[in-house]
């Protein structure tokens, strides 16, 4: 039997829009994932500590504030310096396509925009490989 994958879901910074991430949390729960919901107003440091202590396979960050090009690179740096290169990162929310390319270059596995069907995210997490395995 395969063990359920663990994913930390968090919002970083002052962005208070958490409807989307809650829908994703529920959807992934129903898809058989163990979802650690870290919630709103997290710092990059808090998120990376959660990933470490929870031994997460994936980290999902929701950004609707426009601060993604500031906050996500900090998270990627912290993951690397904390020895967490094996953790895959996905980003959701309002991310312009040009920024999505830049985030992928930083090592983000995938950027999901508004309207993404839930099974697309679940299938990606099941089949997609996190960074270190690629």
């Amino acid at each position, binding site marked *: 039997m395969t*063990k*359920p994958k*663990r994913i930390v879901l968090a919002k970083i910074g002052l962005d208070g829009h958490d409807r989307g991430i809650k829908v994703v949390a529920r959807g992934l729960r*129903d898809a*058989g994932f163990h979802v*650690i*919901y870290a919630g709103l107003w997290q*710092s990059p440091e808090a998120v990376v500590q959660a990933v470490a202590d*929870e*031994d997460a396979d994936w980290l999902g960050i929701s950004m609707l504030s426009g601060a993604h090009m500031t906050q996500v690179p900090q998270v990627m740096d912290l993951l690397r310096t904390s020895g967490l290169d094996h953790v895959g990162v996905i980003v959701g929310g309002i991310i312009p396509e040009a920024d999505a390319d830049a985030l992928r270059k930083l090592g983000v596995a995938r950027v999901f925009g508004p309207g993404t069907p839930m099974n697309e995210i679940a299938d990606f997490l099941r089949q997609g490989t996190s960074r270190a395995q690629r």
Partner: protein
Amino acid sequence: MPSVNELLQRFRSKDRLALSRLLTLAANNDQTTAIRHAIAGQPAKGRVVAFTGSGGVGKSSLIGRLIGLLRGRGKSIAVLACDPQSSVTGGALLGDRLRMSGNEGDAGVFIRSVAAAGGHQAIAENLELMIRLLSVFGFELVLLETVGAGQGDTAVRSLADVLVLLLQPETGDELQWEKAGLLEVADVVVVHKSDLPGAAKVETQVRSQLNMPGFRKIPVLAATALNGEGLEALWEAVERVG
């Protein structure tokens, strides 16, 4: 994927990521014999304080507040927070650490969310091994949070040095406090959300019913995580137990 032997070696040199991965193996019932064998006989000074009570009574929030209080006293703290795992899909939404934020960068705090399958009395499989790993690693306190459990889920008793049962206002009349189950085995009872109306009434009822002449005396206290009121008295009561 590092081998269990490599992980255990790193664990012995206090590598937190190795601890984290060993907890995953324990939770998944994977290579537990090797892990048990490796840490058998190792000194472990951790004191285990468990918190139980119905879903929404405020266990996570109370623990979140206690972490602040106890870190101020220099105790290193590990938390194992159980939430239910779906019997339908095997999935879980683990939402306890959300209430315990503000400890990033503090090596003296370790919080782990654990999915607990149904039918195990509100605690996860191999929880005793996870407690032992945290304790051998060096955490002085292991705070254990059960899945929401109200009356009969007493299995947590055998895992804890101190068992704290949380109640809240508007949870029943005095006959509730005569019932067997968790009330029989708890060391400390907290009427949580003491800022809400009706809390004093429940506190009085529970105290008088539990401590009737001729029966075991157990402390009954009021507290609220909203502003931390009552937490110092609660921790004093916990420390007085055994």
